[in-house]
């Protein structure tokens, strides 16, 4: 954008410093041929041929004006130097007018330029600079309701989504240092490559804030691995889906919930980040219910189930430390599971009793008639945890004592025993079987301060043939 030769100022009326220096601007216009561009009022500072309307902010945007007033000197069509705000000596030496601004305060800071106002800057970037976004543009009709249009095109999970306009997607992309065209991973089931931009579009739709984007990326990376096996998780008829656990300081920075109602609703980070991942699986991967998603009954967690561990309230190592990361590292772990159900024990006061109580319910995870095939997650509440903490139990002791109890006499659960046809095959007769494979029980601490309830989330086919938990570091 070509500026006139000589002195050029950019101002707005809604700036006390600009108002204050009107006499200065008038003097420079008369003596030095100053041209003034006005951002919010073409009659400010005067109705005159030296005042130019820049209410469309074309000049301000193209010249990277961040502060008003800005005074520039243009020579041979190019900017030589600029000063911002008001400092009397600076303006005098810049213009060579020795008596400039007599009687004015020595110094006043400027105000923010309208062209960098966060409410208009993304729009200007799109209008003048091109957004740099590659996704196909879809124009909605004037009479179409935006929210309805999202449903009509099959882009939602059954709840309304935020329409992913260019402005919103550009704001979302500010949440990561990664380039918009970076390919992050390949999304099952259709195995489409996905860029940071496409992730951002779906994150907007899910209701995420820009600072959530790195967690969305990490969670997506976790499920899009051979180990997690998202394709299998989708097309199984079992009622399972990814459940995400967040560890590290980012729990506080993004205000995740690790307390009251932790597995429920009401927290934006907990709710929207896993929803973004599920929308991506649907929209980019093509994994919609009734298509590749063949779940017989599904579970409400498939809308998105993510929660943070209460690390500070636990005397034990964190879940992510169990998964091999150092303490204090931001991470997301994806575990394939069905919906949670309660471990109801309001009476046990000793750790031994509570342990046996928990074990009795863990034995029924998925089915009391089956062992070793599936993992489970035990989410221990603070009040339950206090029983073990008060007795000085370590996590290792808890695990070891639990493993001893979680041994099943196969003869009691063989097919046909007790008149139930489901059960372990006859070849296991006479054996003692562990309920879970080694490392198959996931232990997390979370929940509100009161209530003698914990939760169990039964897993899916465990190990190489099914799904294993996958942890990914969150990189901002």
């Amino acid at each position, binding site marked *: 954008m070509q500026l006139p030769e000589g002195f050029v100022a950019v101002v707005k009326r809604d700036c006390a410093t600009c108002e204050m220096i009107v006499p200065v601007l008038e003097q420079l216009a008369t003596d030095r041929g100053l041209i003034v561009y006005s951002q919010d009022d073409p009659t400010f500072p005067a109705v005159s041929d030296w005042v130019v309307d820049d209410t469309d902010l074309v000049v301000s945007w193209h010249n990277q004006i961040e502060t008003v007033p800005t005074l520039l000197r243009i020579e041979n069509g190019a900017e030589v130097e600029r000063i911002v705000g008001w400092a009397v000596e600076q303006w005098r030496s810049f213009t060579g007018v020795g008596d400039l601004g007599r009687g004015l305060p020595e110094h006043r800071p400027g105000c923010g330029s309208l062209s960098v106002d966060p409410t208009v800057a993304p729009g200007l970037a799109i209008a003048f600079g091109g957004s740099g976004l590659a996704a196909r543009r879809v124009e909605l*009709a004037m009479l179409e309701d935006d929210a309805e249009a999202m449903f009509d095109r099959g882009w939602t999970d059954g709840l309304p989504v935020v329409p992913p306009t260019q402005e919103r997607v550009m704001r979302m992309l500010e949440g990561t240092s990664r380039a918009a065209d970076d390919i992050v991973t390949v999304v099952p089931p259709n195995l489409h490559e996905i860029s940071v931009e496409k992730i951002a579009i779906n994150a907007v739709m899910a209701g995420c804030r820009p600072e959530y984007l790195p967690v969305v990326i990490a969670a997506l990376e976790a499920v899009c691995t051979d180990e997690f096996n998202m394709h299998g998780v989708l097309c199984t008829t079992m009622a399972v889906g990814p459940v995400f656990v967040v560890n590290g300081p980012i729990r506080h920075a993004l205000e995740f919930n690790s307390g009251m109602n932790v597995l429920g609703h009401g927290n934006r980070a907990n709710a929207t980040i896993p929803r973004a991942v599920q929308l991506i699986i649907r929209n980019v991967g093509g994994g919609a219910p009734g298509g590749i998603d063949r779940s017989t009954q599904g579970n409400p967690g498939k809308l998105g189930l993510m929660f943070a561990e209460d690390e500070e309230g636990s005397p034990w190592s964190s879940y992510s430390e169990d998964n091999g990361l150092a303490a204090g590292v931001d991470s997301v772990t994806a575990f394939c599971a069905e919906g949670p159900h309660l471990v109801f024990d309001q009476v046990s006061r000793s750790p031994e009793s509570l342990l046996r109580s928990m074990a009795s319910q863990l034995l029924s995870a998925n089915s009391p008639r089956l062992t070793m095939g599936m993992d489970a997650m035990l989410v221990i509440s603070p009040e339950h945890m206090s029983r073990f903490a008060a007795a000085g139990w370590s996590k290792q002791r808890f695990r070891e004592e639990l493993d001893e109890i979680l041994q099943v006499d196969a003869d009691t659960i063989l097919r046909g025993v007790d008149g139930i046809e489901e059960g372990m095959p006859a070849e296991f007769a006479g054996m003692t079987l562990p309920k879970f494979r080694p490392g198959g029980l996931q232990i997390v601490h979370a929940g509100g301060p009161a209530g003698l309830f914990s939760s169990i989330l039964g897993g899916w086919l465990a190990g190489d043939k099914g799904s294993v938990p996958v942890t990914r570091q969150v990189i901002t």
Partner: protein
Amino acid sequence: MTTVLDPTSEVTPVGRERTRRPESLAGLTVGLLDITKPRGDVFLDHIEAAITALGATVTRYSKPTFAKPAPADLRHEIATQCDAVIEALAD
């Protein structure tokens, strides 16, 4: 007018499935879209007479210019007001 970014893998067109062709035009509202090439209106006048005789109600539309796709608003208007549409080209 809102423009949004496609959240999908973009391997399928954004357009939605076509509705099935009607078995009969009797009682239906049929839109006739003139793309505004010369004498298209003459052709459509004949079509209008013919399908009105079949029991259809006819509503006429025209594109602002034949050189560009029909605007989103016009497509939406036709989609919400008509059971079927015939787009006519004449030259």
